[in-house]
């Protein structure tokens, strides 16, 4: 990758690459510990409790201590487990979770020990696709964990979880398309620089909303945490895991939460760019300050995750899948069509804003008229169908219509045959006598 726009990447000395990898690793582990504590505290406040406040200042060391305890627990491996796959599943999950962060930008070019380098491990022309690819490898960890446990609940939980993640990954991928169209690139650093005057969350609001919804589904978090629905599936795919292997799944879940939040920040909230009142300050977008803006934006998303968990009840599985396939995906596709059409009209046919708005108004008027007309037709059909049903219900049931024995139609009542009635009479007499 030696394209001119990626000149700043891939030229770091080896020690700087190692340093960046180490910093990202440590940061993700610390963020996980922090997020677990933060989630427990915030949910506690929402539920009128206090939450962990004993270990360390404000209970900050609670998750560290819980981590030690988890690692020192006895490991229980089911007899029916397929050992090789059972071992490798949590490793795949955790590795994939860490890998995705390689292309997330934290800040602009800074000077580290005298070397000018961007605050990002690497970048290439398709780095957003790279995040999607790594996410799809991460799903393997969950599916394999479910299968290799040799137990029913994990298998069902694993299937459910992966079906959910695959479905929501489609909606997620579609929500990126509008961003790619506007940024003209699939590289994270270029997408951020394309948001310099205005964030994509503002001009591409539908994409942003679709992404935020699908990112909750993608990370299996409440209200979309059906794979771990304890009332029906015990713990889902990780029911049979304990000790460090379980800890790896736990770690992967929280890192994935941070990853999707960071991706949302990168694609829609301008990444490390300073928000409006701060951006008036000249040096807000240079040096180490952007790292702070980035962290605050990511934490806002994580707070939203926690807020949702504290507020909403879990969805039913079929309603959840229906929402993904029949609402989110068609809505994304329609929105992409609209964005693409608007861009072609603006750039290739060179229409002015005024003409574009007029066209938009005409299209909306036609759609409104069309939907009104469609509703009229649907209502008419519905009444006709109801009448037909009523007619069937009122028709007396003929068990030998046309000379063949037939079951009652819906709504019709089966008549008791003489034999059945006779035996019931005998029973009744026996009871009475």
């Amino acid at each position, binding site marked *: 990758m030696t394209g001119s726009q990626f000149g700043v990447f891939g030229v770091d000395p080896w020690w700087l690459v190692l340093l960046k990898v180490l910093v990202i690793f440590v940061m993700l582990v610390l963020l996980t510990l922090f997020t677990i504590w933060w989630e427990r505290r915030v949910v506690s406040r929402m539920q009128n409790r206090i939450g962990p406040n004993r270990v360390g200042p404000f209970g900050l060391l609670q998750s560290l201590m819980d981590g030690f305890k988890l690692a020192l627990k006895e490991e229980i491996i089911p007899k029916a487990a397929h050992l090789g796959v059972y071992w490798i599943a949590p490793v795949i999950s955790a590795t994939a979770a860490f890998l995705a962060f390689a292309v997330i930008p934290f800040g602009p070019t800074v000077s580290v020990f005298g070397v000018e380098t961007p605050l990002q491990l690497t970048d290439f022309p398709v780095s957003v*696709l790279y995040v999607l690819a790594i996410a799809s490898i991460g*799903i393997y960890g969950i599916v394999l964990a479910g299968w290799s446990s040799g137990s029913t609940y994990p298998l069902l939980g694993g299937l459910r979880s992966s079906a959910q993640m695959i479905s929501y990954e489609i909606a997620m991928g579609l929500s990126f398309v509008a961003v790619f169209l506007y940024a003209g690139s699939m590289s994270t650093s270029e997408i951020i620089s394309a948001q310099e005057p205005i964030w994509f969350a503002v001009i591409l609001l539908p994409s942003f909303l679709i992404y935020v919804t699908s990112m909750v589904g993608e990370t299996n978090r409440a209200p979309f945490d059906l794979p771990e629905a304890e009332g029906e599936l015990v713990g889902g795919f990780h029911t049979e895991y304990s000790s460090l292997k379980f800890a790896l799944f736990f770690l992967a879940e929280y890192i994935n939460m941070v990853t999707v939040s960071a991706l949302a920040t990168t694609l829609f909230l301008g990444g490390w760019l300073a928000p409006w009142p701060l951006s008036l300050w000249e040096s807000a977008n240079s040096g180490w300050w952007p790292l702070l803006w980035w962290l605050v934006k990511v934490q806002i998303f994580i707070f939203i995750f926690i807020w949702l968990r504290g507020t909403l009840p879990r969805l039913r599985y079929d309603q959840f899948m229906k929402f993904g396939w029949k609402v989110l995906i068609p809505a994304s596709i329609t929105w992409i069509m609209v964005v693409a059409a608007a861009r072609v009209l603006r750039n290739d046919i060179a229409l002015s804003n005024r003409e574009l708005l007029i066209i938009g108004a005409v299209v909306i008027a036609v759609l409104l008229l069309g939907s009104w007309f469609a509703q009229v037709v649907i209502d008419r059909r519905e009444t006709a169908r109801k009448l037909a049903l009523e007619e069937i219900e009122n028709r007396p049931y003929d068990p030998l219509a046309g000379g063949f024995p037939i079951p009652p139609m819906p709504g019709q009542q089966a008549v008791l045959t003489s034999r059945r009635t006779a035996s019931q009479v005998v029973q009744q007499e026996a009871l009475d006598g």
Partner: protein
Amino acid sequence: MTEFNLGEEIVFWGSGGLAVLGALGMILSKKAVHSALWVALTMINLAILYIANSAPFLGMVQIIVYTGAVMMLFLFVLMVVGVDSSDSLIETLKGQRLVAIVLALGLTILLIAGVGAGMTDVVPVGLDEANGVDGGNVEGIARLLFTDYLVAFEVTSVLLITAALGAMVLTHRERWLPRASQEELSKARFLGPGHPGNLPSSGTYARHNAVDTPALLPDGSSSDLSIPGPLVARGDVRPIDHHDVEEIESLGGGSK
């Protein structure tokens, strides 16, 4: 031929070796799920080789489409079919071995001819030249897909849509009545003869939690709903111990 540096050598022999290992493992493993996993390994390593050859888009799409979607579907089917089911070795298709051998031979000849021609007759323009036309690898693929190969691209999508349509037709079920909505279901549940929610579990507020111990209601009487009918019929229900009830009342400060 071009010179290789050390990094390229490591990537080629590492990923290439793992890809071959995956292919061998796929053929040699006995469990269908293990075979599927070996194929996934092969695909990921092929993707790494594509990326190393400056085709990042192809590499990523290889992982997203083949590893993430196609192999995942295979895994789904294998898991749903059964963890321990083994393949039946009876061949139902007549003469499939012969056809398979002929097709494999044909494919081998095609590959040798294609690769051979590519190595001798074709003069490579070079990567910079090929990518330079449109300003990048991704842009180049995009232009080719949506201009020269548009028909092939659309035909492929028609094929996929047809397959999806076929799956929908095969799984379609005609409904007699409209699907009951959540409102209708809950009305039916509460207006119907049965208990609307979960029955109280045995032993609630009682001394024991065995199935034969009825749950205690706030007034100290027992709940018949909390014990299974067969136990009642057999007379196996444990009676309430009135000393226990009195003790519980005294603990509660005698409030009645």
